[in-house]
């Protein structure tokens, strides 16, 4: 009897799979405040998102959180920091405007990244009020980052355009794998900094947009919808996937950036506080720029 029941039910389920594939159930506006829920032509991102979020996102974030610092710790111990003379001449690298913009972004990141991690691992914090607060804080910090991201993008874009030095720089991984102080081919910004710039600005903007989409859920993004042809629920799913993906990149590069500024190059952090870089540091790490400055007689 039981077996019969089991079989008949199983056949029902098979039929149900066919029914679902017919995807009539996916039609029309499913919920009040989300329009175009799961239209027939929807991308079917639900399963993809579920699979990624359930099995990979948190793990990858954890890997980034532990892995990146671990690599740097190893680097610090094996190769050690680069130390440049702080007594020599200084080169004016960052205007006051540059510095303010950078600092605002920096503070935003200092808030955004931990709050983001707290949300990702919300269950370990027990969810509820605390994590909700972190979520709101994440949103608030986005506002300050949103204010400076475009000035930041514009003020450095000229120096951030890729060139041949970048390929050379990449080949030797910026010279960070050796203890030698050999001039490294790089302009005002090296390829590493450039990648960080592009990820932080363009990626940051993507994160702001995707974040806002998720934050407000029924955020009116008619334009994006009509441009992409995505239903709102798919847009939300794309947003969630993109947000996580760029989040990983940003976090990894942010850690790198901090490591470079604070540990890898001793005292390099001062340049963004005072605006002046050590001449020796520029000569070695930004040799092309150094040469250019020299040629222009600015040093």
């Amino acid at each position: 009897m039981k077996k019969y029941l089991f079989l008949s039910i199983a056949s029902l389920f098979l039929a149900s799979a066919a029914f679902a594939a017919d995807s009539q159930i996916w039609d029309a506006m499913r919920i009040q405040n989300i329009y175009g829920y799961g239209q027939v032509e929807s991308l079917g991102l639900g399963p993809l998102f579920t699979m990624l979020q359930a099995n990979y996102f948190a793990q990858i974030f954890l890997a980034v959180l532990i892995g990146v610092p671990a690599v740097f710790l190893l680097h610090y111990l094996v190769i050690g920091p680069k130390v440049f003379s702080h007594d020599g001449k200084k080169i004016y690298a960052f205007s006051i405007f540059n510095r303010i913009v950078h600092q605002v972004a920096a503070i935003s990141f200092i808030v955004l990244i931990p709050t983001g991690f707290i949300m990702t691992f919300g269950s370990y914090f027990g969810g509820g009020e605390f994590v909700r607060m972190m979520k709101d804080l994440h949103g608030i910090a986005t506002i300050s980052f949103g204010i400076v991201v475009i000035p930041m993008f514009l003020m450095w874009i000229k120096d951030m355009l890729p060139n041949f030095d970048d390929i050379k720089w990449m080949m030797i991984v910026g010279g960070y794998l050796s203890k030698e102080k050999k001039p490294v081919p790089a302009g005002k910004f090296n390829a590493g900094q450039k990648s960080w710039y592009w990820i932080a600005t363009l990626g940051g903007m993507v994160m702001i947009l995707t974040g806002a989409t998720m934050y407000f859920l029924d955020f009116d993004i008619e334009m994006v919808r009509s441009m992409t042809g995505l239903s709102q629920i798919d847009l939300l799913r794309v947003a969630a996937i993109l947000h996580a993906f760029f989040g990983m990149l940003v976090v990894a590069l942010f850690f790198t950036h901090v490591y470079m500024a604070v540990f890898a190059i001793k005292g390099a952090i001062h340049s963004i506080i005072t605006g002046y870089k050590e001449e020796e540091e520029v000569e070695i790490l930004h040799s092309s720029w150094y040469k250019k400055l020299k040629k222009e007689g600015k040093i």
Partner: protein
Amino acid sequence: MSNNEMARMKFYCDDQRCIECNGCSVACAEAHELPTGVSRRKVITLNEGVEGKEFSTSVACMHCTDAPCEQVCPVDCFYIREDGIVLHDKDVCIGCGYCLYACPFGAPQFPRDGAFGTKGAMDKCTMCAGGPLETNSAHERELYGQNRIAEGKVPMCAAMCSTKALIVGSADEVAKIYRTRIAAKGKGVQSAPYGWSKAYSN
């Protein structure tokens, strides 16, 4: 599929009977005194006005066996009762919306009551089983609505369905009713309970 799975509580809406009277959705909203804009249950009509193709069905949380919402929730606010009812803890929920992205039925609802116009804690069909607070306490009723299951009563939507299209109960019993109806018609299987097996079969 284990036998255990059949002893789960399930919804089934018979689209041969559903006439989009919205009795279920209003009964639900009324029973749980939901804010407007939140519909735990919604009736949808497809191909409206197209002769021979129009049909309606009532959708809410299907209390999936492999509940995707439970899988993706970053704060693990979901819990699945022994009888298969998928519930969540509003005090833990942070209103991130991930459950909504994962859900194939659009069940999770977000009232606009958070700060800065954001969505508050998620709200969804509880199969009238309340939440993790003290059973039938005023607090539970305020957050999750009635706990009719604890009172030994049928969930409101199915009980008030005008044509008895929407039925609820343990899966094998609902399947029995479903088969009885199909048999009465003598027309063989036309469609079957959807959403009962894995939400995303892979």
